[in-house]
Every structure is written in C-alpha cells, then in structure tokens.
C-alpha cells in the first residue's frame, strides 16, 4: 500500500505522535485511578480530567487561530505561550 498521498511531514508527524501519547497517558492514568477526578468547576457542570484535556486542546487550537487572525506577523510562539497559560487555568478551575 502506497502512503505517499498522505504527504507526511516531520512537524505534522510530531504533532500527531504527541496527541497519541497524550491519549495513551490518559488511558493508563484512568486505568490506574479510575473516575477521572470529577468535580464541578467554573462551567457549573461536572468535568473529569478527560474533559479537561479536551477543553484544553480545543481551546488551544482556537487561541492559535485567533492569534493568526489578529497578529499575523507576530510569531506564533506567543500564542503557544498563551495556550500554555490557558491549559494551566483549565486544569485549575474547570
């Protein structure tokens, strides 16, 4: 089977491997300590750590896009830094 049409590149491969590793880690974590630490945060409904990971990833994607829209000429690493802060916030308060 020829996979060249998928046009893999190193950065995208790293990106997907990272996501995959996060999923595996989450699974092992959940298996060792089930329940996912449910709590009711600022969103007023119960979230588990899995939900928080999802909210973090999706939110980060939007932070990057909004950065691109507002400051197309400034390095995206700034957006990355904001996303990191956002992720910490999510894990603390959501």
């Amino acid at each position, binding site marked *: *089977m*020829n*996979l060249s*049409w*998928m046009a893999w590149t190193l950065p995208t491969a790293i990106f997907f491997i990272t996501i995959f590793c996060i999923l595996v880690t*989450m*699974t092992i974590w*959940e*298996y060792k300590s*089930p329940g996912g630490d449910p709590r009711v945060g600022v969103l007023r409904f119960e979230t*588990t750590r*899995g*939900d928080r990971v*999802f909210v973090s990833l999706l939110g980060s994607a939007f932070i990057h896009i909004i950065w691109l829209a507002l400051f197309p000429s400034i390095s995206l690493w700034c957006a990355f830094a904001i996303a990191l802060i956002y992720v910490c916030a999510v894990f603390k308060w959501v």
Partner: protein
Amino acid sequence: MRWKWTIPAIYIIFILVPIYWLVNMSLKTNAEILSVFSLWPQDLTFANYMVIFTDPSWYSGYINSMIYVSINVVISVCFALPAAYAFSRYTFVGDKHLFFWLLTNRMAPPAVFALPFFQLYSSIGLFDTHIAVALAHCLFNLPLAVWILEGFMSGIPKEIDETAFVDGYSWPRFFVKIFIPNIASGIGVTAFFCFMFSWVELLLARTLTAVNAKPISAIMTRTVSASGLDWGVLSAAGVLTIVPGALVIWFVRNHIAKGFALGRV
C-alpha cells in the same frame, strides 16, 4: 380547539405538492412540459419510465445504490450491536469520550473528507466498488446506529440480563436468544436510519465511484448536465428514488416516532 387538525393538514399538503409536481412531470412528454402548463398530464405517457427501465446505464444506478446501501445497513447493525450493549451496560476507561468522538463523526461534513477518501480508497484498491461506498457511509452510520441502539437497549431493564446469567446463560447465548428478540423493533429502526442516510447521501458516493458502482443519484446529476433539458426522464428517475424510501417507511411506521427520538424517550 376544533380547528387544530388544520395545522398538520396544511403541512402535509405543503409536503405533498412538490412531490406531486414531480410525479406529474414524469408522466408528461417533454413537449408537453415545455409547451402547456397544466396541473395534470394531458397526454399521459410512461415513456420516461421506459427509458430508465431499458437503459442499463440508468437502471444499473438503482442496483448499485441498493447494493451498497444493503451492505452498509448490515455492517452498521452487526458492528453496532455489541458496541451499543457495552455502552448501555458497562462503564470502561474512556467510554464517554469514545461515545462523543463517535458522534462527532456523525457531524463531520462530508465535504471535508471527500478528497482524502478518494485517495485512501484508491490506495487500497477499493475505488469504484460497492464496498468502498458502504464503508465510507459507516463513518456517519455506525455512530448513529450505536447511538440509537444504545437508547433502545437502555430501555431494557438490566435485571433481564442478570436473571439470564443467574439462570446459566452464557453471554453470546443470552444475547442471541433473549436480548436481540427484545430489541427487534430497535434494530428495525436502526436499519431504517442507516438505510435512510446511506440512500440520501450523494457527495461521498459520487466521489468514490466512477462506473461500476455509480449510484443513481450521481447518474441523475450527470444526465442533467449532459442532456440539459430532458425534464421528463429526470422527473421519472426522481420518482423512482422516492419509492424505496416510501416502502421502507411503511414497514417501520409503528416505530417511527420512537425511532426518530433515537430510542431516547
């Protein structure tokens, strides 16, 4: 409210009139369509239908559609049954997130996936086969099937499962002998939905086929652009695509309302 029934009545008329118009057109000759404006055929003809029934490039489209829809329905129901049981009876690592991920695929726009699908199925040598379309439609039909079946299964008390296990039933035997007969209507409704979404979908079916597995709906679009103005045949082909759907509705009419609530009421 004595006039309450008028609301659904008007709505049904609104639904039926365009369909009637299509039927009306399919029974007219092209000459009549373009020359006289009439509410019913002045010069009743079945010639448009004869064109479809005699031309293999037309009727093979129906056969192709039927084949891939059937394959899809069978795959969807068979694979979804155990999965839906697992979701309705057990909790396991990542179950909620898995369920959500499955549902997002129901919501993924086919337009996003059309091109990669073409390349994916070409690369594994399935392009222009019925199985390719059937598999591609699983993308949104399987999650839907799991969702509906899970709803129906949650309505069966888990005490029935337990009684069976206490009685000595092994899981597979229980599932086939007791459980499946009890959700028969749920399976029927699921099959109906899978049929429906596979039958009405065009974009993926058209992308993944060229000649051998080309669905009727794709053939219709081609004919429109080629012959341009053959309204009669086009209408007849359209009418013929409505017939299987109407037949299927007739079979599930008693479960339709519950089915549309995805087993969740």
